[in-house]
C-alpha cells in the first residue's frame, strides 16, 4: 500500500498553543455538553479497541475448548492458558507432526524488514535532495512521474518483476535479496515524495551558504541534508517498518518457503477451520506484538511523519 499525500494547503498547519488557549475551556465545555457526541465517541473508541482485546483473550483459550466455549466463558472458569503461545512459537504451527514453529518466521520477518527499511530510505533521501535543491532539465517532469507512480497498483508490476528476479534472469526470487529489492522498489515513490516535502523545507540560506563555501553536492548531502532530515527519516522509517512487517503480497510473490514472514503461514492457516484453528489467534497476536510496541513507543514520530506528507507544501 503506498500512500498518496499531496499537499493539503495552509489550513492544516496547527496554530501555536497560546493562540488557542483562551477559547479552549469554552470549547471543551461545549463538546462535553453534547451527550450524543460523547456517547458516539465512546462507542467508536470501544468498537476500535475491543476486537484486539478479544483476540488476546481468545489466544488464551485451551485447544480443547476453542470450538465450544467463548473466551468470557473460559475466563469465568479460570481456564485460560499461555501455553498456546509457547506452542506456536517453539513447537509447531498447524499440524503437529510436520509444521515448523513460528519462531523461524519471526526471525524471517526481521530479516525481511530491516534492510527493506534502510535501502529505500537512503536512496530516497538522495533523490529527494536532488529534486529539491539541484536544478536540472527534466527535474519537474521526473518528479511528477515518481509522484504519479505511487498510485500504480503494485499488482501491475508483479509478473514481469518476478520474471526479472526469477531463475531465468537474476535468480534471486524466493530468497531474501529478491524480497528486499521488491520492497525497495515499491517503497521508492512514497519515500522520494515525502522526503522531498521535508528536504525542500530546509531554509535556502543554509544551502546557499554551503554552496558559497565551495561545498560539493556530496558534502552538502552528508553534512547538511542527512543531519537536518533525521526527523523525517525517522518517521518514514516507522511507516515503512509497519508496511513491510505487515506485508503479505510482496513476500508471497517474491519470497519462498525459506523467507516467508509471519503473515504468510498465519494467512494460510486462518482459512482452515480444522483441528488447529485455535493456534491462529495466538499466532496473530505474536505477529502484532512487535509493530504495536514500535507504534506505541514511537507514535509521536509516526504521526508527525504522516502529517509531514499531508500538510506541508
Amino acid at each position, binding site marked *: *500500500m503506498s*500512500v498518496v499525500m499531496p*499537499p493539503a*494547503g495552509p*489550513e492544516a498547519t496547527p*496554530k501555536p498553543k497560546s493562540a488557542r488557549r483562551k*477559547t479552549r475551556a469554552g*470549547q471543551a465545555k461545549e*463538546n462535553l455538553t453534547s451527550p450524543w457526541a*460523547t456517547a*458516539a*465517541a465512546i462507542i467508536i*473508541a470501544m*468498537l*476500535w479497541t475491543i476486537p484486539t482485546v478479544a483476540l488476546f483473550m*481468545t489466544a488464551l483459550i485451551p*485447544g*480443547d475448548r476453542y*470450538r*465450544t*466455549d*467463548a473466551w468470557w466463558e473460559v475466563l469465568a472458569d479460570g481456564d485460560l492458558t499461555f501455553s498456546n503461545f509457547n506452542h506456536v512459537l517453539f*513447537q509447531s504451527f498447524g499440524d503437529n507432526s510436520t509444521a515448523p514453529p513460528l519462531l*523461524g518466521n519471526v*526471525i524471517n520477518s526481521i530479516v525481511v524488514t530491516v534492510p527493506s527499511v534502510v535501502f529505500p530510505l*537512503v*536512496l530516497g533521501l*538522495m*533523490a529527494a535532495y*536532488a529534486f529539491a535543491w539541484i536544478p536540472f532539465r527534466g527535474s519537474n517532469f521526473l518528479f*511528477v512521474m515518481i509522484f504519479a507512480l505511487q498510485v*500504480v497498483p*503494485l*499488482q*501491475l*508490476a508483479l*509478473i*514481469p518483476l518476478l520474471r526479472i528476479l526469477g531463475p531465468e534472469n537474476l535468480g534471486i526470487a524466493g530468497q531474501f535479496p529478491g524480497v528486499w529489492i521488491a520492497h525497495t*522498489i*515499491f517503497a*521508492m515513490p512514497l519515500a522520494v515524495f515525502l522526503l522531498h516535502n521535508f528536504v525542500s523545507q530546509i531554509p535556502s540560506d543554509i544551502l546557499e551558504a554551503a554552496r558559497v563555501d565551495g561545498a*560539493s*553536492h*556530496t558534502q552538502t548531502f552528508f553534512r547538511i541534508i542527512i543531519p537536518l532530515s533525521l526527523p523525517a527519516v525517522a518517521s518514514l522509517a516507522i511507516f515503512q517498518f*509497519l508496511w513491510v512487517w*505487515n506485508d*503479505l503480497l510482496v513476500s508471497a*510473490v517474491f519470497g519462498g518457503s525459506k523467507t516467508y514472514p509471519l*503473515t504468510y503461514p498465519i*494467512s494460510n492457516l*486462518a*482459512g482452515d477451520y480444522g483441528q488447529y484453528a*485455535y493456534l491462529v489467534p495466538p499466532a*496473530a*497476536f505474536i505477529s*502484532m506484538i512487535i509493530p504495536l510496541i514500535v507504534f*506505541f513507543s514511537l*507514535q509521536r514520530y509516526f*504521526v508527525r511523519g504522516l*502529517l509531514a506528507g499531508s500538510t506541508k507544501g
Partner: protein
Amino acid sequence: MTSTEVPLSLSRGLPMAGLDGEFWETQSSNLLLAAIAIVAFLVVVSLVMFGADLVRGRIRDKVQLVVLIAPVLFLLGVGLIWPAIDTIWLSFNKVVEQPDPTTGIYTTVTQFTGLDNYRFAFTDPTTLRSVINTMIWMVLVPGLSTTIGLAYAVFIDKAKGEKALKSLVFMPMAISFVGASVIWGSVMYDYNQVGSQTGMLNALLSWIGVEPVNFLVESPWNTFFLIVILVWIQTGFAMVIISAAIKGVPAEMNEAASLDGANAWQRFWSITVPSIRATLVVVLTTITIASLKVYDIVRTVTQGRDNTDIVANKMYVLSFVEGREPLGAALAVILFVFVIPIVIYNVRSLNKVKETR
C-alpha cells in the same frame, strides 16, 4: 461442531520440535546476511558518493547529480515502469501450446489475442463478480472510514485525554491486514451451527434474542462484513489527518459564528467542513487507492468464496496459483484503469501547488 481432542503432548512436555542445531544455524546466517547486506549497501553508497566528489572541474556537479538520482530512476524504470508496460502487453496475449517448427516439441508461446482477456473478465461470472466487488470496496471503504474518522475527530476535539482517545482508534493502523483479518474472521464473526456462539457478534445477537448469522457466508452481505475490516484499519489514519486539519481552522471563525447564533451542527457544516475540504480529498484519495489494492483480507478470511472475491485477490490466484498470467495481467490493468482518474487528479493538484510556490 464437536469438541476437538487435543493430546496432552501438544500443550506441554513436547521437546521443541524443529528448533534443532540446523534451525539456529540457518536463522543466524539469515540475520548475518541482513547485517552484511545493510553494511555493504551503506559502504557502497558512501564510496560512490565520495568517489563522485573526487571528480574535478565543471563536470563534478553533473556526476554527483547522476549518482544521487540514478539509483531511484533505475529501480523505478526496471522495477515498476517497464513491468507495468510489459503487464499491459501481456494482457493482450494468450499462452498456447504449439509444436516447435524445427524440433516438433510442444512448447508454450504467447500469442496476441486482442481484447479476449478483457472480454473474459467482464463475462465470466466469478471474475465479473470480483470487478463489481472491487467497485463496492472502492466506494464504501473511503466513504465510511472518512466519515467515521471525521466524526470521531470532531467529537473528541479538545476533549480531556484526547491523545489517548486518538491512539485507541489509531492503533489498528499498526496491525497487519492479516492480523486484523484473524481478529474479525475468527473472533468477531465466528459462527457455530450448533451449541453456543463463540464469535463475539453472534454471542451478542443470541443474547438479545436474534438468530445468529453466518457473517462470512451470507452473500451479498459477507462482502460488507469484509469491508468493515478495512474500515476498521483505515479510520485511524483518516482521523489523525483530519484532526490535524481541524486544529488549523481559526478559532475566531467559530466564535464569530457562535455570536451570530449558529449552533454546533451549522458551524460544522458551514465552517469546519469547507475549511478542511482539501484534507478530506487527500484522505479519500489515499484510502481509495489502498482499498483497490488490498488483497490480504479476502485471501485470509474467505479466499474469495461465496461471492466475496475482489480483483486484487483474483489476479493473484490467476497469475500465481493457476498459471493464467495473461488473464491475471488483464485484471491488473483493470485495477490500474480504476486509479487513472485519481492519478490525473493528484498530478493536477501537485502541479497547482508547484505553480503557486
